[in-house]
């Protein structure tokens, strides 16, 4: 445990969790609403609620997985560095990576474009990892944004838990 808290401040883990949950849930919910008209063609109300419940449960599961992967990466890096930089760097990297993946999904680039764009993305991510630790304002900004996102994200998590209950009820 001592090693763990050598790497991470509790508050940082919390804020990172908020950022993970927010990014993943926003995309999942946007797509969920996109799917609803097609689902309404043939689902009953209960089936629709069930489908939405599964969606939120999967989003919660994805949040936990991504969060644990980030924490695992943080444990590999030197404790002194992660303690002060882990949260802001992870936050910005996660945000940029999310935007990149979404753009790739939506715009669907051709293979040769993908390779070039992939290379550019990697460069951007590396630069971010190098630049963010140098400026404390960036870290403050990340924490500030995360704090503001907390109530909304808490609502998403509550909906996830409601979804989990619905999924359990549907499978019992």
């Amino acid at each position, binding site marked *: 445990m001592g090693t763990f808290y050598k790497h991470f401040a509790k508050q940082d883990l919390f804020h990172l969790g908020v950022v993970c949950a927010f*990014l*993943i849930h926003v*995309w*999942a919910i946007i*797509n*969920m609403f*996109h*799917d609803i008209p097609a689902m*309404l*063609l*043939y689902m009953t109300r209960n*089936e629709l609620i*069930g*489908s939405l419940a*599964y*969606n939120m449960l*999967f*989003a919660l*599961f*994805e949040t936990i*997985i*991504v969060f644990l992967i980030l924490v695992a990466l943080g444990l590999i890096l030197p404790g002194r560095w992660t303690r002060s930089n882990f949260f802001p760097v992870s936050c910005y990297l996660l945000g940029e990576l*999310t935007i990149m*993946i*979404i753009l790739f*999904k*939506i715009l669907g680039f051709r293979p040769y474009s993908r390779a070039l764009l992939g290379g550019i993305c990697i460069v951007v991510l590396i630069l971010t990892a190098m630049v963010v630790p140098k400026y404390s304002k960036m870290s403050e900004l990340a924490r500030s944004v995360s704090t503001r996102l907390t109530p909304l994200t808490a609502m998403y998590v509550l909906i996830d838990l409601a979804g989990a209950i619905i*999924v359990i009820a*549907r*499978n*019992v």
Partner: protein
Amino acid sequence: MKINRRNFLKLSSLIPLATPLIGASNPIGPSHKTSPETPNILIVIFDALSARNISLYGYHRATMPNLARFAERATVYHNHYSAGNFTTVGTASILTGTYPWTHRAIHIYGTTLDAYRSRNAYSAFGQYGYTRAGFSHNLLVDVLLHHFIDQIDEYTHPHDVAMMDFNISDNLFNSDFGIAYQSENRYFMNRTPPSNSIYLHRIHSALRALIGRIVGDRLKQSFPRGIPGNQDMITPLEDTVDWIMKKLFQWQQPFFSYLHMMPPHDPYCPRAEFVDIFWDDWKPIEKPDHFFSDDNEDQRSLNLKRMIYDEYIAYVDAEFGRLHDFMVENDVYKNTIVIFSSDHGEMFERRIWGHGGPTLYEPVIRVPLLISLPDQTSRHDVYALTSNVDILPTLLHLTGKSIPTWIEGSVLPPYTEQEYPSDRSIFMIQANRNYKLKPLLIATIAMIKGDYKLIHYRGYKDFEDGFELYNLKEDPEELQNLYSIRADIATAMKQELLAKIEEKDAPFKQD
């Protein structure tokens, strides 16, 4: 009385000898539990198998020689049609004996109306003491089977037969499979529009690719075009056929068993010995584009896909031949009605590939049907117009059971005592853009009567409602639209079709 370990081991060695006495398993050969009134019923479905690509039906490529061997002891239906052009619709019509506008399983992940949970082949045969079994590679069929699950005695999960299964729903959420599977598909699968997942979809894809590559490398020599499978499962047909052979003597007899195999549905992955066997100069007739043609398709690529599809059919045929030989050697045919068919066909023309789209041309709706009765040793050929809604009433008739009034199909010739009507109309419906419980406003509906086929398009955006009429006898390739030329036939058929649509829409109209 206490039994010590030594005595227990002595006694347990006698168990195999005692098995026939306790009736624990069914003996090979004719079962004492079947009778002429209660033969076993085995329905074998191969997904997306078009009659137009089968050598038995005149296709010039020798795709199914083993099916021809089975045909020597079966009734072969030469003008048999699925009521829909994708799995859910076609399968629901087979299992309920009703048309899509009645059972309403008209969407990809759709299920029938609740009334049909107890109005289907499983419920019909269950009341006569049949053991009812169901299995499918195709998870869309599993959605239907789960819908009927209360009526199924022995349901086999696809993952029980698959080599690998990356699906979560059939492992974790089996009680709610239909909704769970759709949700899983939306969340994790790459599709248009994009999946609901940002990261997990990528991790899932990477794991699938990695494991698929490991398995693929092992099987690469056997399957150079790729490992058979779909919907995140690896399902070599050999394993499934082996499983069927085993189950034929494990199912309590008499059994009613519906078995739905994925091949030759894409991806087309024939076994090595079938690769390039149809590399020839043959080119099918090039047909005109349609409003629903795909701009990304051209005839050259369709010809290549068709060739590989034919190879895949040959692989299917080889495995079916193996099953057929097994059934011959073990006297399965003595007390079993065996049905071979498909849920829908596949298109490789008019720059349209596949199935499930808004068109209902012959390749995607004309499917094989062969029925072999117990102890049948000769072939019969039927050229009358038949539909897959006829399979269920025919089976009930053959087993001496009454046919419920909710069934829309007819008893097939030559089994019907009454004269089979030559002016019978059959229907095919594609309506997956409609609400399940509302009138069919956006649909393609086809009607075949005698030699003529009328196709009606309605409600599509940017495509004017209209009709096409073809004489299938003189123009089997559907090249000449006779709608304005044969106004007499067109008008009569149009009136009948529109009246039928009106009749079927009536229960779903709200005042």
